[in-house]
């Protein structure tokens, strides 16, 4: 499986012909929207689509991802992980569409939002449209703050609160980053996510 790390653009259409991991990072600073469509048109393809990011003060992002299973035997994992700092706002629509011909599909969407600021806004719509019965499709979405227990664990070992929170934020992305197969891409993503 190859790993592709690209910049987010307003409209992205991906039609891979080999197994691919796609990684995008939502950059902080200014508000914008992006619509990513991943079309699985080749039988037996297995792909991953990960969108990661941390946004801060008054930044508002609208992200849409669609995993479109058009033929048989494809699988896909979609990840959307975002950290919301002070007054940030995220609007996410994550679609899994499985067409009639797409039997033996396996598709999973995982959406996690970590709230670290106050007065944040988070709207999520994980959508499933399934037209074939011989499939496995599921999604999960969670939103919450860092637990006090986790923060205390780190501060009680000498870290400042802000250091503790940054460590937790890194950890939030780590189990997606660690699964990036290409080592160069993995290190680049790790560095960009930290900054």
């Amino acid at each position, binding site marked *: 499986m190859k790993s592709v790390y690209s910049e987010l653009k307003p409209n992205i259409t991906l039609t891979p012909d080999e197994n691919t991991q796609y990684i995008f990072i939502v950059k902080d600073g200014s508000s914008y929207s992006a619509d990513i469509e991943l079309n699985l048109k080749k039988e037996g393809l297995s792909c991953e689509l990960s969108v990661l990011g941390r946004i801060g003060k008054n930044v508002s992002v609208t992200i849409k991802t669609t995993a479109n299973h058009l033929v048989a035997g494809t699988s896909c994992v979609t990840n959307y992980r975002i950290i919301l700092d002070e007054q940030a706002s995220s609007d996410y629509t994550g679609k899994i569409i499985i067409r009639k011909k797409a039997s033996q599909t396996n598709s999973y969407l995982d959406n996690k939002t970590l709230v670290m600021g106050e007065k944040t*806004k*988070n*709207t999520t719509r994980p959508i499933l449209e*399934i037209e074939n019965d011989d499939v*496995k499709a599921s999604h999960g979405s969670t939103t919450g703050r860092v637990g006090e227990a986790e923060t205390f664990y780190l501060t009680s070992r000498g870290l400042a609160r802000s250091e503790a929170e940054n460590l937790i934020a890194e950890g939030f992305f780590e189990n997606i980053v660690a699964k990036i197969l290409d080592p160069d891409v993995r290190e680049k993503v790790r560095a960009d996510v930290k900054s």
Partner: protein
Amino acid sequence: MNKKNIKDIRDTYDTKYGFNMPEKSFLKAEKGLTEKIIEQISKSKNEPDWMIKFRLKAFEVFNSKKMPDWGADLSKIDFQDIYYYVKPTDTEKRTWEEVPEEIKNTFDRLGVPQAEREFLAGVKAQYDSEVAYSSLKNELEEEGVIFLSTDEALKKYPDLFREYFGKVVPAGDNKFSALNSAVWSGGSFVYIPKGVTVKRPLQAYFRINAQNMGQFERTLIIADEGSFAHYVEGCTAPVYSSNSLHAAVVEVIVKPGARFRYTTIQNWSDNVYNLVTKRARVEKDAIMEWVDGNLGSKVTMKYPSCYLVGENARGEVLSVAYASKGQHQDAGAKMIHAAPNTSSNIISKSVSLKGGRTSYRGLVDITPLAPKSKSRVECDALILDSDSATDTFPLMKINESGANVEHEATVSKVGEEKLFYLMSRGLSESEAMGLIVSGFIEPIVRELPMEYAVELNRLIELEMEGSVG
């Protein structure tokens, strides 16, 4: 999988429930919807002035609103091709013996007298838009529990009625609540006094009988502080070639510390459009539970909701949807968190087969007024064959940074290995399917009163068997 083993429940409908009583109605309005018909409805019920005005205003709102551009296909509804009111008898009946024979036969077939004898607290049965029979057990009356038709309650308890009517679901909420507000007839009014626990479930039955009949019952329930009650409704209707419309409104007010459970098993025949607005206002420390079973109808659009307006309020929806050939069940739940420490839980299970379609549509809205709130949604779907489909459209709006929200959904078919496991132990394929489907919906079925659970499990069995039950 052998498709012959999947027996559509609708095939047994004619013999089991599909019967047509010859109509014997005293007042039958003309078809269609006009101001004149609305005034006619109100006058025949001797309603106070404010209600006539309320109805006419709602009619204006109905005309101004567009049909929803989302959800199931409602394009075949012709609002002018429906009777909006038929009154079967002049007065409500007190005892079973006084009920006209045709109506008695209808409820005989539904098992009402048996259930009433055995252990129900009180039964109100509706036939063609009016409550024809009511009976309150002595113990309910002694405790001050009010369980009447909505029409009766408007006359007997006008102040209480007016205080709450239309406050949880205003006419302008959506096109179908506006329609209901204009032409409502029948339904139940329930008041549970402070601190009272009603041990037996309160029940109601509904039927559409006249061709092109619309059912617009309006239910208003007030559970006063610290009370508990369980209200159960189950409906059936005969099979018709032209479409029937059911646009009910249910308003529930759960006052501080009270708990109320509202259970529905809907089994309308497959030509009925079932478009219902059900909403509860849940106050401080109160709990509201909706148990919603959608088995019948051509189209159902129903999203029982809880407005959690008091601290520590809790809302729950347990929903099961079954869609067979030609059916579309578009159901779900809405939870609005508008106070601190509120919590909500939604469990939805749906089964689609023979080309049926189930859609879960839900909303969890954590407003800035709801710090430390929690919500959990679980929706699972089973698709039993390649002709069927399912969708999930959940929406979570989290505008409070201390909230905890979880949502998960799965879609799958019945695994071959599960079927093999059961069949290798001597069950036929249809028995194995029946067991698996029953197990899939069990978390909801176990919350139903026993007769409903038994009936539901038997319906699933019939569905899976090759023979007529």
